Each structure stands twice: as structure tokens, then as C-alpha cells.
């Protein structure tokens, strides 16, 4: 019997994440019981940085291992960098926030690391079971994190809702995987596609149903309409740092697996899923933007805006060309910076027992907290797609992918949606700058770590808008193996 070849360097980032997750738990158990557990956050940050430095040497090798179940190609590495950036900024925000809200347990930090691990597996898996395991590792950690504010009913509701609906969606996904296996006899993405091509299974009903189920499963994770119903409630109730993590990380990981499975295993069905995605994309953008207009809570508004952003990313998915896929990578990174930045501002404007998440709470803060308000404005304008910020460049690539493939109507609907979105992003700036404060917001504490997170997010947002060339060409190189 031949033992499978095991290359541990290939999964070094994942190993480090796991190890640090356990380390955080152990240190927590053996350390004195105090309220201040910031050092656990710092320990986790070290883990993230180490994982980052073990990710870099894998660049350009494109190696796969574990019997071809796991691959460290450009696509997965780019996404891993995005996940690590997201986890890094989330941890920075968390250090102050978790202590403020009294949830700075060891589990909190460990679960963030574990869910980052799950995301990495989703990006690297080339075998459906690996992808599924990654998805579950990520999701279960997030279910717990969403309910961390145990005393807060909304947080518990959020966790429970996410768990129930998430489990339901996972069921669909698993059913889809099972049907795929049933029709092709393989769980390797490449083999599935080869089998379909060799046996001409283009009209196989089992595969068609599997396609629909997979779309539902992934559509749930990326929060696309009509599988978005959970998003506003879950985002509103979860601790804000976790909302930020979900809105960026889970979405990015969902897209990673979505793209990998559809473009590697089911490319022959592209004409079929293109039309499904076209509809999903338009519905997601439009519903997200229109409902966002009427929101009164900033977290709910950002939840709907994140739905709309999933719609923009789907525009590039429909286009499906190299500009589109590298545009998605670029978009996910820019979106991570601006969205995490916006949530950081939301956190900074709150304090213990007073979250200040109503949009009207932002009245008049423009001149009271000028730097906070200016940062928030930058992030909101970036999400609205105003140059010279990262969000504009991201939309530029995504829509140019659609125009290149002559999806003119999709691009037009996309940019019009983007114009609609300007309205609700501007509304926050209107309150911040044009209105008098409705009530005094005093005693805000800006923890140094959160400020650092804010600075990172600002640099990222500006850099991606002003000098997008490097990151874009990096993204273009990264998808070489995938297409």
C-alpha cells in the first residue's frame, strides 16, 4: 500500500491558524481570571501575521497535495491574503470592542482563528468534501460568534436564526454535492468536469438539479437575493465586530468556493448558469439597494448594502472572463477594507450599553468627531463608487468585465443601482455634516487597536483607488490556473 504524499508546507498557514487557535484557548484556561484579555487578541494577531508569512512563499508554486484535494494556487493564495487581512483587522477592532462588551473570552479569539481556517480550506479545496468541511468549520464558528453577547436577546436571535437557516442552506449544498457525486461518481472538481465532457452529460437532469442546489447553498453564504432574508437580522444582532467579519470574510469565502466549484467542475454548464446568475445579480443589487434606502439602523443599512455588493460581484461572475474573475478578487479586497472600515467607525461611535447604531445618532458628529466622521465618509463614498477610492476601481473592473462580454444591460442596471446607492450612503454624510446633533454623544473611548484598524482600512481604501495597478496585475496573475 502506498502512503499518500503529505506536504505540510502546503498547509502551513492552516496549521498555524489551528495551532494558535488552540494556544489561545490554553493560555486562556491557565491564565488568571481577569476582565482584561487583550493579550489573547495580540496572540491571535501574531498567529495571523505568521500565517501570512507562511502564505507568501507558496506564491507561484501552484502546488497541490493530499491526493489533489488541496491546492495552493494563485487564486486560493490571493483569497487567503484577503481572509488574513480581514481577520487581522477584525482582531484589531475586537481588542477594544470585546472588552467593552464583556465578551473577551478566549473562545472569541480562537473562534475567529478557526473560522479563518475554514475560509482558507474553502478557497484551497479542490475536492467537494474539503470545501464542505471548510464551509462548516467557518460557519459553526460564526454561529457561535454571532451569539456571543449572551445577555442580548438580539444577539441570541441572530445566532439562532443564522444557525437554523444556515443549516438548511447547508443541507441544500450537501444535496447538491451528493447529486453531483451520483451523476459523475467523483468528488474531485477536475474529474467531475472531465466526466461530464467525456459522457456528454450536458442535459442530465440530476446535474441540473444539483446546479440549482449548489446555487442555493452558495447563494445563502454570499447573501444574494432571494437567499438573503437572514442577513439584516443576523447582522444587526451579532456583535458589530463579528458583523464586520461576516460581511467581508464569509462573503469572500462563499465567493471563493462558488467560483471554484462552478468554473472548475461545471464549466460546461456555463450557458445555463449564466442566465440564472444574471437574474440573481440584478435582483440582488436592486433589492439590496432599494431596501437599504428605508433603513433606520446603520447595521441593517450596511447589511443591505452588503447584499447589494454581492450583486455587483455577481455581475463579474456572469461575465466570467479573466477580467471578471480578477475583478472579483480585487473587489473582495477593496470591499474588505471599506466595509471593515465602516464597521470600525460604527463601533467607535458606541460605548458600553449605548451602541448608537441608529442612523440619526450620526447627526452632527461631523464637526464633533471630525476624523471619525471623515473616515466614515471616505468608506461610504468608496462603497458608493466615488473615485479615487478603492470601491470605484472595484466597480470599474467588475462592470468593464460585463461590458467586455457585451452584457450591456447588466452593466447599465449595475451602474444605475450604484447611482441609487449613493442616496443612502450620502444620507449618513448629510446627517453627519448638515444636521445639528440630536443628543449629546460623549465619553467615547477610542482604543489604540481600533484606531490602528481604521488607519489600515483607510490606507487600503485609498491605495486600491489611487494605485490599483499592482494589486490588479497580482489578481490577474493569480487566476492563471483557474481559467
Amino acid at each position, binding site marked *: 500500500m502506498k502512503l499518500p504524499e503529505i506536504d505540510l508546507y502546503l498547509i502551513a498557514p492552516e496549521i498555524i491558524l489551528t495551532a494558535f487557535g488552540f494556544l489561545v484557548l490554553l493560555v486562556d484556561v491557565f491564565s488568571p481570571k481577569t476582565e482584561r484579555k487583550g493579550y489573547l487578541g495580540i496572540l491571535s494577531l501574531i498567529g495571523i501575521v505568521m500565517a501570512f508569512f507562511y502564505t507568501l512563499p507558496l506564491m507561484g508554486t501552484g502546488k497541490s497535495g493530499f491526493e489533489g484535494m488541496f491546492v495552493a494556487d494563485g487564486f486560493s493564495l490571493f483569497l487567503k491574503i484577503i481572509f488574513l487581512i480581514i481577520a487581522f483587522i477584525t482582531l484589531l477592532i475586537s481588542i477594544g470592542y470585546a472588552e467593552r462588551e464583556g465578551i473577551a473570552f478566549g473562545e472569541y479569539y480562537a473562534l475567529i482563528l478557526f473560522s479563518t481556517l475554514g475560509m482558507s480550506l474553502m478557497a484551497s479545496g479542490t475536492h467537494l468534501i474539503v470545501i464542505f468541511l471548510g464551509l462548516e468549520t467557518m460557519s459553526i464558528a460564526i454561529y457561535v460568534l454571532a451569539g456571543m453577547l449572551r445577555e442580548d436577546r438580539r444577539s441570541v436571535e441572530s445566532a439562532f436564526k443564522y444557525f437554523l437557516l444556515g443549516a438548511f442552506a447547508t443541507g441544500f449544498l450537501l444535496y447538491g454535492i451528493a447529486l453531483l457525486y451520483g451523476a459523475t461518481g467523483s468528488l474531485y472538481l477536475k474529474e467531475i468536469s472531465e466526466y461530464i465532457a467525456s459522457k456528454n452529460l450536458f442535459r442530465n437532469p440530476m446535474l441540473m438539479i444539483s446546479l440549482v442546489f449548489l446555487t442555493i447553498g452558495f447563494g445563502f453564504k454570499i447573501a444574494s437575493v432571494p437567499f438573503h432574508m437572514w442577513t439584516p437580522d443576523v447582522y444587526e444582532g451579532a456583535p458589530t465586530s463579528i458583523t464586520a467579519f461576516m460581511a467581508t470574510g464569509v462573503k469572500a469565502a462563499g465567493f471563493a468556493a462558488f467560483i471554484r466549484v462552478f468554473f472548475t467542475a461545471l464549466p460546461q454548464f456555463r450557458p445555463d448558469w449564466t442566465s440564472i446568475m444574471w437574474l440573481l445579480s440584478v435582483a440582488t443589487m436592486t433589492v439590496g439597494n432599494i431596501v437599504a434606502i428605508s433603513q433606520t439602523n446603520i447595521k441593517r443599512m450596511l447589511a443591505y448594502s452588503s447584499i447589494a455588493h454581492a450583486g455587483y460581484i455577481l455581475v463579474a461572475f456572469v461575465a466570467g472572463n479573466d477580467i471578471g474573475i480578477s475583478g472579483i478578487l480585487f473587489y473582495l479586497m477593496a470591499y474588505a477594507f471599506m466595509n471593515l472600515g465602516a464597521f470600525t467607525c460604527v463601533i467607535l461611535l458606541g460605548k458600553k450599553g449605548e451602541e448608537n447604531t441608529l442612523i440619526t445618532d450620526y447627526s452632527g458628529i461631523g464637526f464633533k468627531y471630525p476624523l471619525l466622521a471623515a473616515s466614515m465618509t471616505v468608506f461610504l463614498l468608496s462603497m458608493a463608487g466615488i473615485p479615487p477610492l478603492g470601491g*470605484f476601481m472595484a466597480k470599474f473592473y467588475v462592470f468593464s468585465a460585463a461590458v467586455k462580454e457585451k452584457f450591456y444591460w447588466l452593466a447599465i442596471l449595475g*451602474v444605475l443601482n450604484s*447611482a441609487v446607492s449613493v442616496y443612502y450612503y*450620502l444620507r449618513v454624510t448629510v446627517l453627519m*455634516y*448638515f444636521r445639528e446633533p440630536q443628543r449629546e454623544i460623549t465619553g467615547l473611548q477610542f482604543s489604540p487597536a481600533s484606531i490602528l484598524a481604521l488607519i489600515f482600512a483607510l490606507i487600503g481604501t485609498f491605495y486600491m483607488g489611487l494605485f490599483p495597478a499592482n494589486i490588479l496585475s497580482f489578481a490577474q496573475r493569480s487566476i492563471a490556473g483557474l481559467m
Partner: protein
Amino acid sequence: MTIFGIPILSLLVFFPLLGAGVLLFIKREETLRWVALIFALLEFLFSLPLFFKFDTTTAAMQFVEDWWWIESYGISYKLGIDGISLLLVLLTTFLTVLCILCSWTAITFRVKEYMISFLFLETGMVGALVALDLVLFYVFWEVMLVPMYLLIGVWGDPKRRIYAAIKFFLFTMAGSVLMLVAILALYFLHQKATGKATFDVLELYQFGLPVGTQYWLFAAFALAFAIKVPMFPFHTWLPDAHTEAPTAGSVILAGVLLKMGTYGFLRFAIPLFPNAAYELMPLISVLALIGIIYGALVSMVQPDLKRLVAFSSVSHLGYVMLGMFAFNTQGVQGSIYQMLNHGISTGSLFLIVGMIYERRHTRMIAEFGGLSKVMPIYAAFFMIVTLSSIGLPSTNGFVGEFLILLGAFRSNTVYGVLGATGVILGAAYMLWMFQRVMFGKITNPKNEGLKDLNAREIITLVPMVILIFLMGIYPKLFFSKMDASVEKFLNDFKGRVEMKTDLPSPKLLAEIKK
């Protein structure tokens, strides 16, 4: 050409931004005003060499800078000016100085943020005028929105400033996002036909698209620019924005921002899609004529001075569009000249209205009357500017309107006749307004103690008056700068229209030569 080792156009684009950065670290209001003024003045001085070093014998782009911005996409950082943009750049740097001067006492709160917004706006405006790459242009075009939005929304008239600010932003944004799709479509069509990925307008000028495609792309560009101009029926944001903006905001809005629309037609929409522009000439001319007459008629019945001037802008910009779409030398030259005129005379009108508003905190015509008795200097300036706006011979307005009407007559007599009625209506509403505000008895006791203009206000207005006469008496100084560029613009246009068919792509040409 470089100043301090920095290429002049880049310097002009980013110098105000540097000023905005410096202002961040200043606390005292008085210092803030002075520093902002010094930066604006220096910017104006730096822009003067453009005028004197400009080579009038060539229609080629001058002071060109060309670097890659995003090479893999063919997006470049390409700047340059020709006779069309030269004068508009100078108008921008000139008006910004006056705007900062006229905000000296009018802006009493958040001075720092105000001055930063203004300098930021200047970067956007100059950038949009000198950009020769479509993406770069689009970036600057959008960048202008945010500071202007803040200027209206924070420092505007308390009553409806928020409504006006949002309306301004959304109208412009809605138009320009469609332009973005058109830019992308043009890029990919060009890439497919020639194999070259570029957003460089000068290269895209050479690209002959099928007329059917041109219609669509022209429509998207024209919508974005027509909203900005604003052409009837897309003008509804303008009276609100103008009325609610602070004085300096109105000046810069009328003086430069509206010109972005007309400039966009000249630089992008027409030369990129000449056949479509030619075919749609009747439609645009008719809309321009409606704008001229409708704007004038609505001006006549406005009770609010600023709203009156705002609607007169709709009328004046109608002339600019009419002249441009006459597609002959007189029309286009008159059109460019009228852009400058409008910046100067309407800008001055807003300044003048702002000065009386600062004293009385009302702009209602009915509140005034007989002001010439208490404010003689003010009355003199007001008269000159009013006459310039009407287009009295020996003022700048005459030259522009005359050329435009001449051009319109040559292309279509009916357009010329209808356009000329606008001149009469213009004289009617301006003179009637002037009479009601300035002459007669002082009916309102509040007006009796009004102070005449102070030195700063006179300094603000004198350069405008000098320009009004200079441009009216010696227009050659300015026409000589634009002659070559206008000629090239028209030759290229006519060449493409007469061919009627598409230009063969360079690839095809190369194959034929083989």
C-alpha cells in the same frame, strides 16, 4: 515646461490639494483665510505661463505629460491642453481666487472645512479640464462632486440646502454612471477593432465606429454632459443648487462646473462620435433654443435675485450649445467665448447678489428699490455687469452672442432668428430687474442705511470689470489662442461626417498596404 521641477499641469492639478493639506494644521480662522488665498493666488500665478507660453500656431496638445497609471488596462495619466481648455483652466484658477476673497466675511463658521473643500474642488476642476485619458477624466469629474456637495449642504441657505445638495449630487451621478458604461464600451470596441487597449482620447478620436453604435454611446455621453450644462429638460437641479449655495459656490458652479458639460461635448462627445453628433444636431439645437427662450421667460418672473440669475444661466448656456452645434468657425468660437463670458458675467452677478445678501439677508427683488442712491459704487459695478450679461457692444457678452448667432444663422436661419429673440428677452429681464432693484424711491426703510462696497469687495469686482471690457474690446487676444484648435476640431469633424462611412481601422489599413 516645469515649475520647481514639477511639470506645470501636474503642479496645477495638485497644488490646491497641497494647500488643502496645509490648511488641516491651521487653527486660527484669519490665518486659514489668508493661507487659502495665498494658495489660490499662487495657483493662479502658476497658471499664467500657460497663457504666455502657449504656442498659437499648433492645434496639437501642449504641455503634455504622459505616464502609465494602470498599464495592463491601457489607462494612462495623460494631461495636456489645447486652445479649448487653455482659457477654461485660466478661468478656473482666476475665479477660485475671487471666490476665496468673496467668502472672507460671508463664511463665518467651519472656515477650515470650507477652504479645504474649495481647494479640493479646484483640483477636481483643473484635473477634469486637462485630463486626456477617459478614465482619468472620469475620476476628476466625479471628484468635483463631493466638495461641491459639501459646499452647498453645509454652508448653503439653511432652508433648502440639503434638498439642493442631494439633488445636485444625484442628478450628476445618474448621468455620469451611464457615461462610464459608454466609456467602457468604447474601449472594448476599440480594442477589438485595433487590438490596442487604450483610454487615450486622442487615439480614440481616430476610431471610426458604425453610426448605429455611435448613437448609443453619444447618447450616454450627451446625457452626462447635458445634465451638467444643464440643457433643457435636465436643468431642474440648477436653480435649486444655485439658489441654496453660498455665494462663492454659486460663482464657481456657474463659472466652471457648468462649463464642464459644454467642455465635455467639445472634447469628448462630439469628436468621439461625430456622425451621431451631426445627425442629432437638430435635436440638440432645438433643446438649446428651448433653453434660451424658456430660461429667459422664467427668469423674468423670478422674485428672487439669485434664482433669476440661475435661470439666466440656463438661457446663456443654451447659446453655448446652439453655437457649438452650428458646427462652423463662428459658432464654435463664439461658443467657447461665451463659456468664458458666462463665467465672468454670471460669476460677477452672483458676487454682486452675494454682497447685497450679506448686508440685507434677503434676495427678494421686492425688498429692494432705489439702492443706487445709497450705494453708488455698487450700482456702477452692477450696471456694467448687467450690460455685459445682456451683451452690449464693447462688453464681452456682445462678442460671444454675436458670433454664436452669426454661426447659427449660417447653419440654419430659423435657429438664428429664434436665438436672437433670446437676446431681446435677456435685455428685458435683466434691465427690468436692475430697474426694480436700483432705481426709484427707497421704499423699504431698511435699505436707507446700507453701506457701499468696501475695499475687499471692490478688489473682488475690479478684475471682473477689466476682463469684461478687455474681452469686449480686444477679443483677438483670446481668439488667437483658440483659432488653431477650433479649426482642427471642425476639420476633423467635417472630415469624419463627409466620409459618412466608418474610418477603416489601422489594422485594415496596414493590410491594404500590404
